[in-house]
């Protein structure tokens, strides 16, 4: 028989702490899933919409960067490169990654708390306001109202809307945990609960310290990067890991290898990640001790990262053949492997001697796409391939479209990473190269040297965009209930009948 989609063993970990564990039955799960249908589809669907919007902005920005006179010659302020680039970042961060992540989180919380979704009105209202907030924010950026603070470009009145939505989601999460079936709290639940509580705290603190009661001088930059790093580390990473911790065991039908590694990975991530922010300002005009503690904390990330990697790997051992058949598993494992890679890369970039080469170059942009795209976005795609059929009660219409989507994600993100990394290192080493006492290259030469790599990045972005359009089309068919009614999940290759 195929073990794909079997749903028996999750939570049966190597722990004696689960005395009251009971096997869920399919009817109960289907009832739980049905209760999440509208809210989760609202978040996933609107997230996907923002992904498409963000992709359009990304392509405009990418092509304009190596061809500055493209489209408007600078007469249309709404299409100015910096505004489009900022709109791209905010559309994918707050529109796509956060919204879809919340959707996946809501579904996981209902499943893992083993209670039907309570108070759906709270999350629906939050989702509507969140989308309104993102739409106003992006319009404001295009209209020239950006705050100019990276990752926090939405004007403060938009942040207030997002914060209001977010508080609703936090309250809802706590209520769900209150109503949960008693028993073991699974590792995915720790990550989700933590993320859903940390983020509003982080967001509010940062807006207060930068905009409402601004701190002096470079403290703004320290606060800015404390936020910028934590939004990755304490918001997107926990959601991505929660999803990986759920779907890898779920699809292969085996428990997570080790409960203790899960706990160690979680608490070391929580402790060290929050201290990383200062590594964005290495060499900058801030106290040296802040840079030093952040560098140390960055390198200490080796613990949570390798623990998670080992735990996932040992869970997968002997089951890698499911990667051939299961779309969810293939996206999730690609994401989980990218997580290991991006984290190891991030540690190395915090080491000063390497940071002096890569800082201020496109290498950093490659790093952030490896994190937010290859890691996080892939995992969310994988989760969506699993969740959506359970909400629309039909299966994905075409295995070939899923395949096309996967290979676009894989080759597109790999090409982007390679181009930006090589381009960035070229840029950084050219700056440092000296002939005698003088720089070997004029600054403009270093700008020019990046152009071939920027063109490569545009090609990569186009490949990713194709994948997004394919996925959106496929998702649309599912929403219209035009999927297959086979009752069997759509797999890349039908498993041999046994």
């Amino acid at each position: 028989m195929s073990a794909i989609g079997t749903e028996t063993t999750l939570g049966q970990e190597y722990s004696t702490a689960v005395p009251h564990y009971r096997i869920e039955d399919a009817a109960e799960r289907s009832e739980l899933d049905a209760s999440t249908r509208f809210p989760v589809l609202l978040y996933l669907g609107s997230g996907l919409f923002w992904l498409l919007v963000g992709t359009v902005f990304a392509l405009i920005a990418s092509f304009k960067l190596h061809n500055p006179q493209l489209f408007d010659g600078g007469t249309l302020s709404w299409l100015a490169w910096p505004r489009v680039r900022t709109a791209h970042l905010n559309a994918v961060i707050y529109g796509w990654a956060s919204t879809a992540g919340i959707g996946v989180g809501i579904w996981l919380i209902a499943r893992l708390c083993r209670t039907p979704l309570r108070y759906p009105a709270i999350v629906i209202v939050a989702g509507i306001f969140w989308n309104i907030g993102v739409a106003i924010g992006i319009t404001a950026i295009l209209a020239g109202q950006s705050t100019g603070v990276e990752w926090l470009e939405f004007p403060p009145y938009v942040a207030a809307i997002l914060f209001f939505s977010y508080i609703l989601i936090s309250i809802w999460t706590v209520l769900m945990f209150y109503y949960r079936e008693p028993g073991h709290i699974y590792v995915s639940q720790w990550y989700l609960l933590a993320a859903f509580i940390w983020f509003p705290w982080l967001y509010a603190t940062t807006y207060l310290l930068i905009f409402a009661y601004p701190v002096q001088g470079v403290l703004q930059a320290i606060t800015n990067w404390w936020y910028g790093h934590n939004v990755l580390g304490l918001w997107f990473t926990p959601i991505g890991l929660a999803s990986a911790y759920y779907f890898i065991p779920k699809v292969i039908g085996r428990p997570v290898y080790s409960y203790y590694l899960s706990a160690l990975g979680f608490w070391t991530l929580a402790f060290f990640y929050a201290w990383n922010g200062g590594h964005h300002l290495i060499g900058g005009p801030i106290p040296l001790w802040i840079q030093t503690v952040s560098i140390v904390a960055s390198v200490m990330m080796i613990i949570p990262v390798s623990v998670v990697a080992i735990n996932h790997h040992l869970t997968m051992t002997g089951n890698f053949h499911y990667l051939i058949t299961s779309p969810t598993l293939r996206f999730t494992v690609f994401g989980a492997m990218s997580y290991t890679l991006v984290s190891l890369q991030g540690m190395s970039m915090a080491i000063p001697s390497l940071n002096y080469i890569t800082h201020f170059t496109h290498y950093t942009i490659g790093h952030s796409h490896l994190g937010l795209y290859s890691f996080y976005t892939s995992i969310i795609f994988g989760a969506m391939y699993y969740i959506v059929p359970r909400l629309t009660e039909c299966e994905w219409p075409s295995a070939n479209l899923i395949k096309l989507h996967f290979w676009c994600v894989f080759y597109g993100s790999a090409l982007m990473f390679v181009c930006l990394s090589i381009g960035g290192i070229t840029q950084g080493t050219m700056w440092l190269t000296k002939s005698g006492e003088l720089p070997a290259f004029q600054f403009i030469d270093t700008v020019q040297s990046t152009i071939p790599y920027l063109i490569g990045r545009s090609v990569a972005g186009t490949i990713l965009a194709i994948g997004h359009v394919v996925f959106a089309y496929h998702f649309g068919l599912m929403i219209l209930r035009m999927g297959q009614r086979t009752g069997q999940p759509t797999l890349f290759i039908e498993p041999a009948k046994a």
Partner: protein
Amino acid sequence: MNRLPTLFLGFFLTFLSAWLGLILIPTFQIGALKPEVTEDGGYSPPSPAGSAIAGESVYAANGCVLCHTQQVRNKIDTADGQYGWGRQTVARDYIAQRRVFLGTMRTGPDLASTGASKSDPAWHHLHLYNPQHFATGSLMPSFRYLYKTQKILGQRAANALDVARLPEADRPPAGYEIVPTRDAQDLVAYLISLNRSYSLKEVKE
């Protein structure tokens, strides 16, 4: 790890530790730096004045920070000393700014002290209008939406761009002139105000 209060306490303490360490303690250390009083009774760094204050918002809204840093690092380990970007910057350099733009990318050069080497507003306006014409090979977008082309009424406007220095294709028809908007004037005033040529006790060079 099956009890919610334990989990909440853990979430709270881990997050709080970093907040105390990276936000609160630095606030005590460098949260209230004062400018140095110079011999002639002025301040280092000087407070921005006039339209440079408004220019800070134009710099923010138009995303200059995406390509330009405003921080010069130590000149031994990094390449920051070789392109004429001025001396290394320190925390006190930023206390007079309402919003700091340390930046993360150098698709273009550092601007921490750009006003010291490029102090001519006319050059800044022409460069913002057509960056490639004044810096061959530049990837900077044009900001000509901050300028307007208008009919010359009697006298040519005092702040009109010297169109003779622009390429043929950019010149307006006869009888018209290109003038900076309020935003463009503020932005250029801000750029020229970026000047770290004053000295500070903690800067040794």
